[in-house]
């Protein structure tokens, strides 16, 4: 029973960490229509920043400032935001599919940097010993994980509430206007270029937050955690849950991560051990099929966008 509960806690923690990233992507794609194919790269920036800011000092590697948890989170968001601003200024002028190609390339490049810039990132070995704040607050892994889950619920709740408020604000309506028809929005005096950049940076900051939450939970960071498949998983979560709906984003994270973990569990039980190494490939095939079938059968996702009519138009 304890085993099941602690597994459930572990599962919920990872779902919520993914959920944060999906919320960031939802702001970009769901509300603004920006195709970011480099999600894993921006998560990686946040994760490594967290590791450098809060981790212990190391020989021959930069960082290890031992800063508190919250400072790490803020720093991670700032670093991802700065990275996104640099990238965004260079690429956001591009129309959809070119933006997809460019952001895909950014993620590849960021991963190369993580792998090879040993002074900053520890290279292939990554960075270890990143403190988990709950270690100081409680004894035993279950209590610590439960506390971390609590921390996550608070962080996700705040992010969710802030995003809900943002997308209902005049700025949020401007995002949708630009998504639907950029020319029309521009003709009404809205600055599409600036607003797209703001939405991109904000979305990437939330992805960076997700990366930071991930490393302090896992306790280490390695370049192999940010392969392009992470981007695909997060996209699938958004499509399954329903883009342009923050509730959908979180639901998608829960469902897709559930399918991923369950399929991993089933494969580890059913598949003979000689071909266990191929189990990951089966999971990837499954995720790809879910994405394609969802697009074909129910493109708006499980709970898609709620349609609003302006209260001024109604009367």
């Amino acid at each position: 029973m304890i085993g099941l509960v602690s597994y459930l806690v572990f599962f919920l923690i990872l779902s919520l960490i993914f959920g944060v990233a999906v919320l960031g992507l939802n702001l970009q794609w769901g509300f603004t229509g920006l195709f970011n194919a480099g999600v894993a790269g921006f998560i990686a920036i946040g994760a490594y920043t967290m590791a450098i800011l809060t981790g212990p000092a190391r020989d021959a590697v930069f960082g290890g400032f031992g800063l508190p948890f919250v400072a790490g989170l803020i720093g991670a968001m700032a670093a991802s935001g700065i990275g996104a601003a640099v990238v965004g200024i260079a690429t956001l002028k591009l129309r959809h599919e070119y933006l997809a190609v460019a952001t895909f390339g950014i993620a590849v490049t960021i991963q190369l940097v993580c792998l090879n810039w040993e002074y900053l990132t520890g290279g292939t070995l990554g960075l270890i010993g990143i403190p988990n704040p709950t270690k100081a607050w409680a004894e035993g892994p279950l209590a610590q994980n439960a506390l971390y889950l609590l921390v996550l619920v608070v962080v996700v709740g705040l992010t969710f509430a802030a995003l809900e408020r943002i997308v209902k604000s005049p700025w949020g309506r401007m995002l949708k206007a630009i998504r639907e028809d950029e020319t029309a929005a521009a003709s009404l005096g809205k600055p599409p270029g600036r607003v797209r950049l703001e939405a991109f940076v904000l979305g990437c900051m939330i992805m960076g937050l997700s990366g930071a939450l991930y490393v302090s939970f896992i306790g280490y960071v390695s370049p192999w955690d940010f392969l392009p498949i992470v981007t695909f998983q997060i996209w699938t979560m958004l499509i399954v849950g329903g883009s342009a709906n923050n509730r959908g984003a979180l639901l998608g994270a829960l469902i897709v991560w559930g399918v991923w973990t369950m399929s991993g569990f089933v494969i580890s039980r059913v598949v003979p051990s000689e071909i266990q190494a191929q189990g990951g490939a089966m999971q990837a095939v499954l995720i790809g099929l879910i994405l394609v079938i969802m697009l074909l059968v129910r493109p708006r996702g499980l709970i898609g966008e709620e349609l609003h009519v302006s209260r001024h138009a109604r009367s």
Partner: protein
Amino acid sequence: MILQHIADGILSGAIVSLGAIGLSFTMKMLRFANFSHSELLTWGAYGGLVFAAFFLSFGGFMDGIIGPFSFGPALMLAMLCACGATSLIALFLHRFVFERLSRKAGHMTMVFASFGVALVLRHLVVLIWGSDPIYYSNALQFAILLPGGVRVMPDQVFLLGLTAVVVIALHLFMTHSRTGVAMRGVAENPDLAGVCGVNVDRIVTWVWVIGASGAALAGVLYGMTVQLRPELGFSLILPLFAAAILGGAGSLYGAVLGGMIVGLSENLSVIVIPTTYKPAVPFLLILAILYFRPDGIFRERSR
């Protein structure tokens, strides 16, 4: 040393060119960036492996090796069959995924779907053939020493020759055959071409067949000169897109020229940057071209 880099650049550029032709055509004529195109290279390469084993099982004449090359008639025939099989895969994907989505959803939905399709195709290769590298042949080859100290393998000379033949044949097809001219018409304006009596569906089928066959050839040639592995196509996504975007979507010569530029700059980059960062070079090329021509080479009409 620099001459060797140039030779290697042209050789890898030829493979990228062949693969980029199809990507460039689908970007222009079907109006979406197909991230699963690179997986057609992988399937072409592994398809070649299967067909080669099939033809080799006949023994006799098939077992032979042509001249100084590492392969014989079996792999040549297998290459053709791989083109056919890869075309069938592409047409299947078109019929059951991309065409359906293009009818009821936007272009971006097709791009998503291509991500999903790529994931499925790539990992099916892992499931079927495993993730270890495979070679078509273990035959030893002697390098040819060219003036300037440049060494090339006979297979690499074959690669370059075949690429040239394919590009010339495609050029003649696009300029002299009715289908080729109709294809260029569809690229310019599908509705107008339809009004003029062009069967747009048939042209789209041709686009997939040409694109997939080019991808399959590129895959087999990559397998012949490097090795077969499941990430073969995936590792070429950025070079392929860089070539297609550099050359301008829909342009045959653009894709070939773009492929050469990508191959050369990748191989020459090792002179100035560490080899480990070589995979980022195509991305920098994409950024550079998009920065100087922000709407892409072919300016899209604004809606």
